[in-house]
C-alpha cells in the first residue's frame, strides 16, 4: 500500500513536511505516478503516498519548502486533483463534519432498531406475564436460540461498545463503553449459563435477561443518535459565522493591457488584489475602499443594527453585506488573516476551553468508571451475602443495573456543551469571549471600571460650539483657526481642522507660526496676528476677557467641553468649544450595569471639571480624574483589595496593563478589530451595552452549567444506589436493567438539550 521514492539525501531539518489530499486516485498504480511527479521537484526530498487515506506526505530538502500551490499544480498536470490537508476551508470541514454525523446518526438508528427489534417483543412478552425462566428442555432450546440471536444483536448493534471496552481496558483506562459492555455482557453471560447448564443455579434463579441485553443496546444507540442530532445544534453560532464567508470574489485584473473583471474562488484572492463589490453582495475579504461609496451592514459581526457609511479610505470587512452602492477596494487581509476568520478561530478555541467550574467534573470523570465497577461488585457481594433468595439473580440484576445506569457522559458533557452554546451566543451579540475562565469570571463581576475617552465617549473630539464676540462670521473664524492649526497634530487642533473640512472651508497659508507648549498657538494669516489657546495664553498676551466671555467659558466647561479662546490682532473674537461626545447609548448601558448591582467607576486622564461633567451626564458617581495611564492598574488593584471582582473596559491601546490586571479585561474593538491580545473579552461594536450583554450571557451560561452539573451529579448519586437496590429493604423495589438503560441513554441527551436552551437566550433589549 505504501511506496516511496526517495532521493536519499541527508535529512537535517525537522518539521519541513507538507501533507496533500489527493482526489481522483482510484488505483494503486496512481501512487507511483504521483510520488514520481512530486519527487522530480528540486526542493522535494521525498514524497510518500498513503493510498488508503489518499494522502501524500512531501518532505522538503533542508530548509527549503515549496508553496503547496506548486505541488498541487504538479499533481494536476498528471490528471489528479489535490489540496493541502491543512488548508480545507472552514466550510468544507463543516460540510464533511455534517455528512459524517449524518452517516453516524443513520448507523446508530439502524443499530437501535436491531436492538429493539429483539428486545421489544421479548420485553412485551415478559410484561404480559410470559415466563422468562428455564425449567424444561423446550424452554432451554427456545432460550438458547434467543440467546444466540441476542449474541448476534450484540455483535451487529453493540460491537463498538465491546471493542471500545477491550481497547480501553488494555490501555488501563475505562469509559462508557466499559460500563455498557460489562453490564450487557454480565446479563447475557448469566442468562447463557442458566440456559446451558441450569443445574448450577438454584431453581428460583433460573431467569434469563436477554431482553435486557437487547433493549439496553437498542436504547443506548437511540440515546447516542439523539445526542448526535442535539449536538449539531450546539454549533449553530459557528455555522452561522462560517456561512458569512463569501464563496467568490470579483477581482479586477489587468490582462494584455485590458482591465478585466473576473470571478474567482475566495481562496485565490491575494493581498493587494482589487475587488469589486456590487449592491447586495458580501464583502469577500478585508480591505480598504479605493473607489465609490456605500453603506454596509456590519450587524452580523458587531451586532450593530445601523448600516455603516463607507467612503474612499475606509476599511471594509469580510462577511459584511454591501447595501446600496458599488465599491472597489484593495484587499489588505485575505484567507485566515481576515477579521472574520480570526473571529471564527477565536470562537472555536473559546468553545473548546473549560471554565474552572468544570474541573471538579473532570476530576470525578477520571475515577468514575472504575468506582462504578467497584460499586457493582460490592453490590453483588452484598446481595449474595445478605439478600433474599434467589440471591444470585438479585446480585446479577443489581450489578448489571449499577453498571448500566451510571453515566459518565452526562458529567463530561455538562460543562463543554453549555460553554459551546454560550460562547457562540455571545459572538452573535458581538461579544468575543477568549476562554472559559473569562466566561466564568465575568458572571461574578461586582465592579466595572470604565476608561472615559473612547469607551464612554467616542474618543474623537469634535467642535461643538462657536461663540462669536465680534462681527466676523462663524465660518471665517473657523477658517482662520483651522489655517493656524493645520500643521498641528494635537487632537483638539485636528478636531478644528476636520470641522473646517466638513464645511468645505478653504485654508490659508500661515506665517511666523509658533506653538506655545501647554497654552496654544500663534501665527499670522492674511496679515492678521492670530492667537488661539487657553485662558492662560490670553492673560499672557494681555487680551481683555469680558465678564460675558468668562461666563460663557465656564458654562462650556461645566458641560464637559473644553473652551478655547481665539483672538485676532489683540482682540478676543470667539470661544470655540471642543468636546469628545458621549456615545449615544452610554447612559442607558451604564444604567443597565448599575441596575444589575454593579459598581461603575470611571477613570480618565482628563481634568476634574471635564471628568465630573461627563460622570454626571452618564450617571456615574465614582470617578478618578487626572490618572496617568500607568496608574490605572493601581486603581484596579485598589478596588480588588476592597474585595471587588473587577472588570476593566478600555480601548486596549494604553490600557493594556490595567486590562491584564483586572479580573476580566474588556476591550472595545474599533469596528471589527479583534486583535486585542490583552483583553479577555472583546466587544466588536463600540457600544457599552456589550458589557451588560457579556455579563448576561456569562451568567446565563454559568447557570446552565450549574443546572447540568447538578443534574448529572444528582442523577448518578441517586441512580446508582437505586440500581444497587437500596430501596429493596424498605419497599421491595429493585430497578430493572432496562429502565436503567433508558435512563442512562436519556441522561446525556437531557444535558445536551438543556445546553441547547441557551440558544434562545436574548440579552435584554436596548
Amino acid at each position, binding site marked *: 500500500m505504501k511506496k516511496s521514492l526517495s532521493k536519499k539525501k541527508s*535529512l537535517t531539518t*525537522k*518539521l519541513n*513536511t507538507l*501533507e496533500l*489530499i489527493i482526489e481522483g486516485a482510484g488505483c494503486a498504480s496512481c501512487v507511483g505516478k504521483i510520488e514520481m511527479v512530486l519527487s522530480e521537484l528540486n526542493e522535494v526530498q521525498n514524497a510518500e503516498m498513503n493510498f488508503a*487515506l489518499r*494522502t501524500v506526505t512531501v*518532505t522538503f530538502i533542508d530548509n527549503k519548502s515549496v508553496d503547496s500551490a506548486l505541488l498541487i499544480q504538479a499533481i494536476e498536470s498528471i490528471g489528479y486533483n489535490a489540496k493541502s*490537508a*491543512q488548508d480545507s476551508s472552514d466550510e468544507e*470541514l463543516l460540510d*464533511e*463534519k455534517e455528512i*459524517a*454525523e449524518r*452517516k*453516524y446518526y443513520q*448507523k446508530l438508528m439502524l443499530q437501535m432498531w436491531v436492538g429493539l427489534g429483539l428486545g421489544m417483543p421479548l420485553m412485551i412478552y415478559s410484561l404480559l406475564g410470559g415466563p422468562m425462566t428455564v425449567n424444561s428442555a423446550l424452554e432451554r432450546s427456545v432460550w438458547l436460540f434467543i440467546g444466540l440471536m441476542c449474541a448476534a444483536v450484540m455483535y451487529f448493534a453493540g460491537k*463498538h461498545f465491546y*471493542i*471500545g*471496552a*477491550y*481497547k480501553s*481496558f488494555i*490501555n*488501563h*483506562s*475505562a*469509559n*462508557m*463503553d466499559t460500563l455498557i459492555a460489562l453490564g450487557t455482557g454480565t446479563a447475557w453471560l448469566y442468562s447463557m449459563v442458566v440456559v446451558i447448564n441450569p443445574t448450577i443455579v438454584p431453581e428460583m434463579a433460573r431467569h434469563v435477561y436477554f431482553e435486557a441485553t437487547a433493549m439496553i443496546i437498542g436504547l443506548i444507540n437511540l440515546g*447516542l443518535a439523539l*445526542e*448526535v442530532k442535539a*449536538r449539531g445544534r450546539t454549533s449553530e453560532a459557528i455555522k452561522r459565522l462560517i456561512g458569512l464567508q463569501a464563496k467568490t470574489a470579483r477581482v479586477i485584473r489587468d490582462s494584455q493591457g485590458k482591465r478585466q473583471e473576473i470571478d474567482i474562488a475566495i481562496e485565490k484572492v491575494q493581498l493587494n488584489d482589487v475587488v469589486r463589490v456590487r449592491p447586495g453582495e458580501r464583502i469577500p475579504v478585508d480591505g480598504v475602499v479605493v473607489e465609490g461609496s456605500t453603506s454596509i451592514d456590519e450587524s452580523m459581526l458587531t451586532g450593530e443594527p445601523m448600516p455603516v457609511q463607507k467612503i474612499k479610505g475606509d476599511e471594509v470587512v469580510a462577511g459584511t453585506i454591501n447595501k446600496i452602492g458599488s465599491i472597489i477596494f484593495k484587499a489588505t487581509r485575505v484567507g485566515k488573516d481576515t477579521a472574520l476568520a480570526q473571529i471564527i478561530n477565536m470562537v*472555536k*478555541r473559546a468553545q*473548546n*476551553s*473549560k471554565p474552572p467550574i468544570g474541573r471538579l467534573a*473532570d476530576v470525578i*470523570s*477520571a475515577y468514575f*468508571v*472504575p468506582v462504578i*465497577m*467497584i460499586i457493582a*461488585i*460490592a453490590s*453483588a*457481594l452484598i446481595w*449474595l*451475602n445478605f439478600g433474599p433468595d434467589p440471591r444470585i439473580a438479585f446480585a446479577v440484576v443489581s450489578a448489571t443495573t449499577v453498571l448500566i445506569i451510571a453515566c*459518565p*457522559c452526562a458529567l*463530561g*458533557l455538562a460543562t*463543554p456543551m453549555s460553554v459551546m452554546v454560550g460562547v457562540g451566543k455571545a459572538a452573535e451579540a458581538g461579544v468575543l469571549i477568549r476562554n472559559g475562565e473569562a466566561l466564568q469570571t465575568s458572571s461574578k463581576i461586582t465592579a466595572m471600571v470604565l476608561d472615559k475617552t473612547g469607551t464612554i465617549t467616542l474618543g474623537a473630539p469634535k467642535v461643538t460650539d462657536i461663540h462669536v464676540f465680534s462681527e466676523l462670521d462663524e465660518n471665517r473664524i473657523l477658517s482662520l483657526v483651522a489655517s493656524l492649526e493645520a500643521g498641528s497634530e494635537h487632537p483638539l487642533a485636528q478636531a478644528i481642522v476636520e470641522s473646517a473640512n466638513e464645511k468645505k472651508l478653504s485654508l490659508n497659508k500661515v506665517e511666523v507660526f509658533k506653538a506655545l507648549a501647554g497654552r496654544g498657538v500663534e501665527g499670522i494669516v492674511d496679515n492678521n496676528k492670530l492667537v488661539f489657546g487657553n485662558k492662560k495664553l490670553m492673560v499672557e498676551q494681555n487680551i481683555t476677557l469680558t465678564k460675558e466671555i468668562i461666563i460663557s467659558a465656564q458654562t462650556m466647561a461645566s458641560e464637559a467641553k473644553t473652551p478655547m479662546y481665539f483672538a485676532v490682532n489683540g482682540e478676543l473674537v470667539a470661544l470655540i468649544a471642543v468636546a469628545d461626545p458621549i456615545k449615544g447609548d452610554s447612559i442607558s448601558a451604564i444604567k443597565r450595569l448599575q441596575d444589575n448591582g454593579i459598581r461603575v467607576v470611571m477613570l480618565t486622564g482628563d481634568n476634574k471639571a471635564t471628568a465630573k461633567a461627563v460622570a454626571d451626564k452618564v450617571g456615574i458617581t465614582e470617578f478618578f480624574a487626572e490618572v496617568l495611564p500607568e496608574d490605572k492598574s493601581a486603581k484596579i488593584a485598589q478596588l480588588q483589595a476592597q474585595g471587588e471582582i473587577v472588570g476593566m473596559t478600555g480601548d486596549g491601546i494604553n490600557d493594556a496593563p490595567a486590562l491584564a490586571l483586572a479580573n476580566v479585561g474588556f476591550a472595545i474593538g474599533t469596528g471589527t478589530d479583534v486583535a486585542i491580545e490583552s483583553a479577555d473579552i472583546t466587544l466588536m461594536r463600540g457600544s457599552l451595552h456589550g458589557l451588560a450583554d457579556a455579563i448576561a450571557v456569562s451568567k446565563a451560561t454559568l447557570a446552565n452549567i450549574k443546572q447540568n452539573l447538578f443534574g448529572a451529579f444528582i442523577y448518578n448519586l441517586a441512580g446508582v444506589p437505586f440500581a444497587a437496590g437500596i430501596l429493596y429493604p424498605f419497599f421491595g423495589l429493585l430497578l430493572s436493567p432496562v429502565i436503567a438503560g433508558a435512563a442512562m441513554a436519556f441522561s446525556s441527551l437531557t444535558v445536551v438539550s438543556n445546553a441547547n436552551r441557551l440558544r434562545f437566550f436574548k440579552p435584554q433589549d436596548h
Partner: protein
Amino acid sequence: MLIVNVIGLGLIGLIIWWFWLYKPKAMQIKEAVSDNEITIVVEDGVYQPANISLNENSAIRLRFIRKDASPCASTVLFPDLDVSAELPLDKPFIVTLPTMKKGEYSFHCQMKMYNGSIVVK
C-alpha cells in the same frame, strides 16, 4: 460463599491496581516518530498510542487520524497548552504543539472518554 467473597474483593483490588496504580509505559518519541511527528489513531474509545514521552524543549507534531464517527472523538483538547482541534473523520489532521517544559500534559476528548498523555522529560 467465602470463595465468592474473596473473588469479589480480589476483583476490586485488581480494578484499583489496573486502572489507578499501574503506570503504563509511555511510547518513547524516538521510536515512534520521523521528523518529530507521531501518528495517533483515534478509534474505539482510545488514542493509539495514548502515552507519549519526549525530551524537554523538542518540537512535536501530532498527526491525528480519527476513525471514530462519534462526535465526542471529534474534539481533542490539550488543556495545559491551551490548544484544541476539531478532527475531521478519516482524514489526517496535524496538531503542532508548542515546545514544552518538563512535566505531564494530558490530552482528551470533550467528555474525557478518550485520554492520553505526553510526558516531557
